[in-house]
């Protein structure tokens, strides 16, 4: 019920007229108010979000260890790196990342696996939970609350809680399957062939509940008459969902898609708390971070990796913005 009151799409749609006129002309005092209300957030956003985002691009063409100042001189080749510092390095950082940096391609692969698991497993699972719960079966409220619980916990906490499940010697999983002795213990979080999948189970455990909640809101907004009409026509529940309900939930589908992609690019906390993102758990996000807060600071190189992440994330971001704001700009053009 609360959802309904809060949902602007349902609450406002019938009342707010399409051709929205903006009221009134501005007095001097009003202009000052506008300046303050606009100015402060814009300043913050430019200084701490978009400024640094552009800075990442700029720094990615330099070689800098963070000490001393930056200059616009080109780096001298064949000189010890201490002497060529804070200089323009061209695309060398990118070149190194793609060719000789051993962690780069594994990290890309891990990010892609992460994305694939979210897209093909966590998200469908969350949607399936939502569909089952939305049918109003007995105890649906309780199921919803339980499946939603992990969403409340921080990812750092999720990582710690799961260590009790995965631990070699005392973990629940190894004890139950009888692999908790020194000879045959399975090192779920230490074995580089296993640990990514083990961590992905943790991530899915949290993500599915998140997706479920988003879809529950979407399903509630679907006109029940649509479903009834489809069922009366003799379509079964399975077809009705995919042919009638799913397309109507388009806005939610877009949001879930963006959340899924962005969350798999942002993935950091879980692997960092597990083993600081090494030995099978390398991710692009970890590589960026370890190049700037580690002992040896490679600002230029870390930035180049950040740009790679930026370019990839621009795909879902632009898709989302295009699909979301397309409608808003249309009536404006018509006016």
């Amino acid at each position: 019920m609360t959802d309904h009151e809060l949902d602007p799409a349902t609450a406002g749609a019938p009342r707010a007229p399409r051709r929205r006129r903006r009221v009134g002309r501005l007095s001097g005092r009003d202009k000052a108010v506008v300046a303050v209300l606009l100015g402060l957030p814009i300043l913050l956003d430019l200084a701490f979000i978009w400024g640094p985002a552009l800075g990442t691009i700029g720094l990615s063409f330099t070689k800098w260890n963070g000490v001393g100042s930056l200059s616009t001189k080109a780096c001298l080749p064949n000189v010890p790196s201490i002497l060529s510092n804070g200089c323009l390095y061209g695309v060398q950082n990118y070149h190194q990342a793609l060719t000789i940096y051993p962690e780069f391609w594994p990290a890309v692969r891990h990010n892609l696996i992460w994305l694939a698991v979210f897209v093909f497993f966590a998200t469908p699972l969350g949607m399936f939970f939502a569909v089952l719960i939305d049918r109003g079966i007995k105890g649906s409220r309780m199921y919803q609350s339980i499946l939603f619980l992990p969403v409340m916990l921080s990812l750092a906490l999720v990582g710690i809680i799961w260590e009790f499940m995965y631990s070699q010697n005392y973990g629940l999983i190894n004890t139950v399957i009888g692999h908790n002795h020194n000879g045959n213990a399975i090192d779920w979080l230490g074995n580089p062939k296993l640990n990514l999948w083990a961590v992905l189970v943790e991530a899915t455990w949290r993500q599915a509940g998140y997706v479920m909640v988003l879809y529950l809101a979407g399903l509630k907004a679907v006109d029940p008459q649509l479903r009834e009409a489809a069922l009366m026509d003799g379509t079964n529940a399975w077809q009705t969902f995919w042919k009638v309900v799913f397309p109507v939930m388009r806005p939610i589908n877009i949001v879930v898609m963006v959340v899924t992609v962005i969350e798999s690019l942002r993935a950091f906390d879980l692997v960092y708390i597990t083993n600081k993102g090494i030995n099978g758990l390398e991710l692009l996000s970890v590589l960026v971070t370890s190049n700037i807060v580690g002992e040896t600071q490679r600002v230029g190189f870390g930035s180049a990796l950040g740009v790679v992440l930026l370019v990839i994330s621009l795909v879902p971001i632009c898709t989302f913005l295009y699909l979301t704001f397309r409608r808003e700009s249309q009536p404006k053009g018509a006016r």
Partner: protein
Amino acid sequence: MTAQTIQGTAPRASAGGSKKPLRWGQIASQVFLICACVLWLLPIVFALYVALRPYSDTQKYGYVSLPHHLTLKNFSDAWSQSDMVHYFWNSVLITVPSVIIVLALASGLAFVLTRVNVKINVALLIVFTAGNLLPQQVIITPLYRLFLQIHVPTFLAGSGLLYNSILGLVVINVSFQLGFCTFVLSNYMKSIPDEMYEAALVDGAGLWTRFQKLTLPLCRPALAALATLLTTWIYNDFFWAITLMSSGDKRPITSALANLQGQFVSNQNLIAAAAMIVAVPTLVVYVLLQKQFIAGLSLGSSKG
């Protein structure tokens, strides 16, 4: 398992007229959901169980064994041995101002973007929304350098810099969440009928009055939902505190967990107890404000 259940439920439910197949579908759904819920609760319940058992007990019988003693001593030990009050207080000092400031700024911005014709308002909204969607790691490198450059008076930040200060974390949390809140609030404000503003204008209300006396009260449900969501998110933040703070003692509790883990490395029961204590604030939100939290999430995903 998933696919089986789908197949098991859907075609049968379609049979419509007869009641029996439908019931089978329901039973399958129930079984599936009960299994899922057991799996979902298992890690948390097991960690809680470890936290409730004395170290000596688990050493003697193993962690997966029936309880011989249950005790709350691990909780009190974890609490007193790790100076948790201090870290919790850091979390409060970061979370509370961040939530208030971000909601104040975002509601003002959303108001101007939806109610005043500033020509570029859609463009601005896009810029803010996109900023919130960037992975944090895209901006962290220059941000880290920037935080080392910006000097602030020592009464605001003990370090004299934005880096390694509570103020710095407030600044970045506010900036980063601004986009999401503006997006949600502007969608919400669009649903307020124009007639109300026209009436206010007839009464001679200035822009500030229209914002403060008319818009803000109407947005109260959205603000409450966002406040719940933001409190949880900022409390749960790990990345900013790990990267923009060097010393452990200024970190909020969530990122201090990494240190606690090192401190208690030989006593898993204490780690479990500490983890459970850290989860308490979010569990309070979960129990008392779950509806608000979910409403906030749904607001973010529905567009006006």
